[in-house]
């Protein structure tokens, strides 16, 4: 495993192009595009203000930079550095900006969710979509880029509009049976739209592309409901994480519950492997604390850590949430399927330092990773069943069915990994610190062994 040198970055804005060739990073108001393989700067663009959002177009030819405070969006072309485009939303304000799947339209959500403005870069045409709903995930494009589902709110009722992304033709418009729609997501094959209610009511609705209600699922009533919803890449399963610390898996034929994964504080399942991160502080003698050593780097003060396999049963650290507070820190908030749909990684918010990995073939717990600190982010390798996670310290953690490893990021100045992103080839990882970034190259040969 190799690590690149450290680059500057701000707002954790750093993305690899969809084709995997370029790496775009934002430093204050500058946009830097590098070649991923050589890390040489290819292009440098200067925006009008500090960049608050950046995104690649699907064809990797354009980059969008949004400056929400100024209500501005600037688009840059990689092929023609001279080409420029500036979209000003004016006094109405800008809340979020994104590419359409074809990479020729920019969708801007204005402040107060007043409307969504669709700017065409081909024709300079502008069109508005009224009544977008302000919610957890109110807009989703199907994976093939053909359709866009948008949650709307009119007359205190929830609606879903399905647009054809090609020419923004409204294909379907239907009312949903929700009290307060919280999010929607297309299945990976683009034929089923999952719609879920806000946490006050446990309700998942499944709509066909043509707006027919396929099924409704509700696990329980009264107590707080759904916290997260994720489709399995094969569209076979729909995983629903909820406030009762369980994940329920629905199948794609009957839309009934196949199984449910609980997150108990004590693990008795003998089939699961519990990896516990053990920290070990290097013993520093008093004579080592000379000025010389301090100046050498903070690596001296970094703790080393490794994983140990705990004998069962294992008691996991649990934080009891304050019941008087809104949005209690309890329940399954993060769900992620591996690219081959074989594994599901989950995180229960009241056990913030634990990541659970479930086997979707055996429908059982596969592994539990107990970290020393709260898990910030985890992501599956897009090619292999390999999970990378970080906890905001100087280490990178990797899990694969073969085992678990903790790697110290060998950079000076205390590089703390806040977030990470896989390169689409799965050969490298982009580690994001507070102000820096660093590339981690996986040893492919070792992986083959």
């Amino acid at each position, binding site marked *: 495993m190799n690590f690149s040198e450290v680059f500057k970055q701000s707002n954790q804005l750093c993305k690899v192009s969809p084709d995997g060739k370029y790496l775009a990073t934002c430093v204050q108001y500058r946009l830097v595009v590098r070649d991923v393989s050589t890390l040489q700067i290819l292009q440098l663009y200067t925006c009008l203000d500090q960049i608050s959002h950046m995104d690649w177009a*699907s*064809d990797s030819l354009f980059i969008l930079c949004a400056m929400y405070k100024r209500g501005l969006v600037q688009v840059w072309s990689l092929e023609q550095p*001279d*080409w*420029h*485009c*500036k*979209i*000003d*939303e*004016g*006094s*109405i304000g800008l809340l979020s900006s994104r590419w359409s799947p*074809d*990479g*020729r339209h920019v969708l801007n959500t204005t402040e*107060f969710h*007043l*409307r969504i403005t669709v*700017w065409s*870069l*081909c*024709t*300079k045409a*502008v069109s508005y979509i*009224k*009544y977008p709903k302000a919610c957890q995930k109110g807009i989703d494009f199907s994976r093939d880029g*053909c*359709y866009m589902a948008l949650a709307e*709110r*009119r*007359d*205190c009722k929830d609606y879903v509009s399905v647009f*054809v992304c*090609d*020419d923004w*033709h409204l*294909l379907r418009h239907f009312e949903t049976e929700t009290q307060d729609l919280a999010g929607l997501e297309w299945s990976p*094959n*683009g*034929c089923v739209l999952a719609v879920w209610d806000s946490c006050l009511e446990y309700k998942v609705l499944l709509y*066909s*592309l*043509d707006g027919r209600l396929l099924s409704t699922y509700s696990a329980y009533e009264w107590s707080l409901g759904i916290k997260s919803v994720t489709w399995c890449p094969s569209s076979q399963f729909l995983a629903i994480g909820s406030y009762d610390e369980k994940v329920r898996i629905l199948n*794609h*034929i009957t839309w009934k519950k196949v199984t449910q994964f609980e997150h108990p504080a004590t693990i008795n399942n003998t089939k699961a492997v519990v990896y516990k991160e053990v920290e070990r502080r290097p013993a520093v003698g008093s004579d080592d604390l000379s000025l010389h050593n301090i100046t050498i780097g903070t690596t001296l003060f970094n703790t080393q850590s490794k994983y140990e396999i705990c004998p069962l049963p294992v008691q996991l650290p649990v934080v009891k949430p304050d019941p008087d507070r809104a949005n209690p820190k309890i329940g399954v908030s993060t769900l992620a399927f591996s690219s081959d749909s074989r594994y599901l990684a989950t995180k229960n918010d009241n056990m913030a330092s634990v990541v659970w990995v479930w086997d979707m073939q055996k429908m059982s717990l596969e592994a539990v990773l107990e970290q020393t600190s709260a898990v910030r982010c985890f992501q599956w390798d897009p090619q292999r069943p390999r999970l990378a996670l970080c906890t905001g310290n100087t280490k990178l953690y990797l899990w694969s069915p073969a085992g678990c490893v903790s790697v110290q990021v060998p950079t000076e100045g205390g590089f703390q990994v806040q977030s990470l992103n896989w390169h689409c080839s799965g050969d490298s990882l982009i580690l994001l610190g507070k102000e820096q970034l660093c590339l981690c190259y996986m040893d492919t040969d070792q992986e083959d062994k």
Partner: protein
Amino acid sequence: MGEWWTTVPIGTSMGNYDISSISHVTMSPLRQNNLVSMYSSLPLSKSSYNVISAFCTEDNIPQCISYMNQELASLGLSSTCIEASSPGGAGLSTVPALNAMYELLQIHRRNMGTLEELEKEQLKKSSSMEHMQMNNSRLKDQLELSIREKSGLHETERQLQLKIKTLQSCLKTEKEEVQKLQSIISSRASQYSHDAKRKERETAKLKERLGQLLVDRKDKKLAIDVLNCLGRSDGKRSHWKTAKATASHEGEMYKSLLSDYEASQRALMLENAELKKVLQQMKKEMMHILSPRQLSTRGATADDSQDQADSDGEEKAGNSSRETLDQSCEHAREQLTNSIRQQWRKLRNHMEKLDSQASQVQNQLESNKEVIPRETHEDEMERMRHEVQQCKEFIHAQQQLLQQQLNTSFDDETAALLNDCYTLEEKERLKEEWRLFEEQKRNFERERKNFTEAAIRLGREKKAFQEDRASWLKNQFLNMTPFTDRRRCSSSDGQSALSIRSEPEMRISSTNAQLAKSSTYATFSTPKPTQSAAVPSTTELYRTLRLIPDGSSSRHSNRGCWQESSTIEDADTRFKSRSRVRCGDLSIFSLDKKPYTHRECRALILWP
């Protein structure tokens, strides 16, 4: 009985009053007497006699007699009548009186016996009564206790009921509360949702207004600034929004839906086919399992034969369904499922039958086990005993054979071998001893040689001394005479000095050799002086020893020798003057040898 007994005398006494005119005074003692007789019989006779003496006087004898007669008659003793011996006389005719008396005594005794019995009875009764009373009181206590208990239980029951009542009321109130709360919640929820809706409408209106305002203001800033327009990502030109386009969109959508459904259907078909295959296989295997049994039990029962017919039919159906598997039409499916079901039913029946058979067989076995034992068991026992006997015999024979073998082999071979061993060992030991002996012998030889040498030397010295003395005497003699002075000096220098000088060197070498040996042959060397004493005379030896003194050796062990010399001192005062010089050598011996060598030395010293 007691009552009767008490009333009778009273009755008689009452009768007495009526019949006789005996004074009240005379009656009273009788009564008294009666009362007294209840308690004691012995003093009664005395007192009664005294009283009776007062009862009859000289004067009233006839009256007395008549009274007595009356009394006797009343007692039923009318046969004997006391008569006066002579009318008007004082004497009584003795026989009737005695008879009457005897009768009375008899009656009295009988009465006493019954009295005693009755007393006993009375005692028994009273004790039993006491027992009864006690029992009674105890039972009463128990009753009281149980009553108390009962009341307590009643009390608790009442309390519990009260509690239940309160709890029920509590429950009711709680239920009411819950209902109230629920209604409150629902009302609040409705209120909240209403408010939320109102707010939402307001915000919607606001948004509308805001949008309108923004549109009305003709916001100049709202703009897109593109250097030059881009082509579409797919390279096509954009279309007009027409009905045709919308229709095509619909078509596209349905197409994708259709393809998705087709894909899912295909997947399901595949799955279905797999399942069907599994079913087919199951069926085949079932039939395979079932067929041999049916062949074996063919025509055993009507039921079985019918089954057989059914299965034949099904077999055909199964075959046909197998053929139509690919068609997957409803008819084939029905056939397949039906046949499977029937097969399954048959299999189940078969299994049940087998189960029942197995249980029957087991039962039979068990029952057989219960019936059989007597004969078979005994037979078996007999057989086993026989076997055991055989085995025992066999073992015995083996043992005998083994012993024989052992005996024979021991006689000629092992014995020799053992003997050989023993002799070898013995030889070894003897050899060792021989070696030791040899060594000892050599030591002795060496010592003996030393001593002979010493003796020879002594002899020589003696000779020299004699010569010296002779010369000295000659000198003395010559000194007396004139002109002998010069000759004397020359002779003393010549011979004696030479001999003395040669001696110490030899001595030192010998003692050194002895010292080196002494540590190893301490035991052998100890008896050396006594043995060697016989060879040369000790006086001679010591005379030679006296010559040993050497400056260096004596100085080395000066310290140690002082103590030893002190022990020697008191024993041998004669050598005191010279011992200081001599004991240097002695101490060398004593330091290495055991302490008793001092004594030996002393003995040696004392020898002369």
